[in-house]
């Protein structure tokens, strides 16, 4: 319920943003034709506006857009390229999603065990090293790291590591070889995006675990003779799991946040770069709006899933919901 409300508000914000761009789609398209040598008049612009439905009031157009998105998955037409946005973005967005999700999984695969270990060995060498890493993860932004890795690889190995596909596979249809080629390139953006996310997730896990592990129920379990890894995993880790699941949505948000910039640095051919092009170069509001909305929709969806997950693993949450 809340998810639908959130999506509606987000769609309104995104739609308003698209509207705020000076000039509308018809004017821009006609202006583009103008540069191609066609002479256009004010009447042409008006006719184009009517054709696109731009003469109707703001709220109605928003309602049309939203219903198109929700009911038919139709994001309208790209302003300049005259193709359906869904077709233009589809595959690229899937690539972005794959990168972001893999980064998220990698983040938690690293953060949970290391965070638990570090909380347990508080003050030790691992803990100290982890703190330095997590501070660096905050202070060394993703795009800088991507840049450094790229420059380093280029200078030392003569390989740029940019892009998602080798030239011969860039526009090829999907095949096994193309998939293998993708795997050869995709690890770098995933690793870089996971780097900063891991830094923050590590701190969360560590803080939660060190809060829990000194509580009385843990002491009681220890008194009963449970010890070692078994003690950690059976008692404090289960308690700390709830807030960690809760933070997945925010971590995904952070990853999507960094994705466009990293994508630009590494010249990936995904939705992040498309967003940048739509905004900075072609000024294509429909396309940009659709991409932002898709990204946000994914985050809302993941938040929804984690809420359900939370209810499944934590009886207290379940009881407060019903």
């Amino acid at each position: 319920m809340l998810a639908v409300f959130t999506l509606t508000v987000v769609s309104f914000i995104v739609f308003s943003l698209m509207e705020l761009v000076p000039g509308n789609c018809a004017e821009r398209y006609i202006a583009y034709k103008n540069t191609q040598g066609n002479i256009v008049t004010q009447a042409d612009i008006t006719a184009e506006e009517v054709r696109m439905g731009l003469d109707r009031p703001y709220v109605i157009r928003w309602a049309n857009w939203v219903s198109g998105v929700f009911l038919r998955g139709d994001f309208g037409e790209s302003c300049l390229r005259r193709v359906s946005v869904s077709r233009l973005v589809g595959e690229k967005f899937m690539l972005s999603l794959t990168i972001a999700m893999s980064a998220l999984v990698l983040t938690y695969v690293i953060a949970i065990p290391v965070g638990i270990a570090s909380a347990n060995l508080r003050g030790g060498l691992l803990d100290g090293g982890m703190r330095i890493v997590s501070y660096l993860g905050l202070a060394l932004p993703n795009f800088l790291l991507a840049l450094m890795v790229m420059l380093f690889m280029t200078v030392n190995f003569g390989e740029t590591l940019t892009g998602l596909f080798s030239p011969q596979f860039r526009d090829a249809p999907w095949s096994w070889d193309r998939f293998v080629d993708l795997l050869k390139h995709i690890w770098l953006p995933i690793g870089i995006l996971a780097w900063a996310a891991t830094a923050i997730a590590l701190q969360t896990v560590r803080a939660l675990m060190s809060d829990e592990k000194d509580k009385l129920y843990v002491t009681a379990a220890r008194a009963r003779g449970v010890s070692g890894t078994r003690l950690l995993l059976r008692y404090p880790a289960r308690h700390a799991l709830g807030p960690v699941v809760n933070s997945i949505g925010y971590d995904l948000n952070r990853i999507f946040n960094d994705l466009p910039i990293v994508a630009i640095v590494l010249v990936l051919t995904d939705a992040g770069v498309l967003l940048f092009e739509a905004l900075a170069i072609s000024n294509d509001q429909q396309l940009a709006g659709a991409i932002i909305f898709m990204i946000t929709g994914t985050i809302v969806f993941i938040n929804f899933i984690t809420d359900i997950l939370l209810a499944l693993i934590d009886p207290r949450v379940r009881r407060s919901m019903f």
Partner: protein
Amino acid sequence: MFFRKKKTASKEDYFTASHRQLIWQRFKSKRTALIAGWFLITFILMGLFAPFLSPYNPTAAGRNENYTNGAPQIPQFCDDAGCSWRPFIHGVERYRGADTNFRWVTRQTEERNYLTFLPSDGWAWHVGKFNLNLPGERFDIRAPGIEFTTHLFGVQDGYIHFFGTDASGKDILSRTFHAIRVSLAVGTIGVFISFVLALVIGGISGYFGGWVDSGIQAFTDSIRVIPTIPLFMALAAFVPDGWTAEQRFFFISLILGLLGWTTLARRIRTHILAERNADYVLAAQLCGASSGHVIRRHLLPSFTSYIIVDLVISFPYMVLSETALSFIGLGLKDPVNSLGVMLQNVSKVDVLLNYQWYFIPVPIFVAIVLAFVLVGDGLRDAADPYSEVNK
């Protein structure tokens, strides 16, 4: 621990201390945060006194045509001709001859160029100069300010470039100082705007509670869920090409502030929700105080120190966002120097191979963010009233 000892010595002080004194006491006992604090103060001073510290104008006006892409010049005390107490650098000249295949090269001369301190014939900078061009002649505000030409150091004649020069001959040291200044300024304006917004929205939400609170919270959550950088990019793309660098600067700061308030608003709401049922608030309300008066005079002072801590924590994110925006070319642009603008230059392999000194701003940028994060963390731990109990 240091603080424990003091507590037993003067228990009275401890119980009568204000929030702020307690936070400061706890903050002082953290070595990392304290060192980071000193770094931070240094950077802020660098930003404030950037025109005085930088020997040359950081824009194209101060460029050294004879030394483009020049390596850093390190002052030395000795050379082949002997030593001197005064540090000097060797002069440079443009030279073309048969031995260089008739191409122009920059080479060092034997001539010594001594460092001078506090030279008063440098480029002019102004304190309090202010120009505001609003539509309409009457609204223009102009203040000439006071002109200074003194700088911290220079050389007898010609130029000295501690950090080298860039492709058009601009002094990287001067640019770095100004970049720190601009990045901190963007952060400050952004934090200020988001602070005011957060105060109003979070204040209303927390004070009135009920459906107002639910509505505002649902709305805030919807904004929080949109990743900020794509949103920043969308807003920054509106900037028309015709805008001046200053207009761009204010617009970028504005959008950073307009989108950064959500987390802070939430914290303020939580504080107010916790405080608003306290007896002193009820007493004020019974005395007939208005809502605004109660929020301003009674609720806000009760957690000012926590708000300051939150502001410090949110600061590095503003700087990071600005840098990321400028880095991809949607943020600030060339005549204005910010750390993001300077990082734009390092994205080429050519630079890594030949002009390594372009990278000098990178560690400085990392150090600034790190200093802010460490100080913010230290303050947050210090502001947490339970941190003492847990130990």
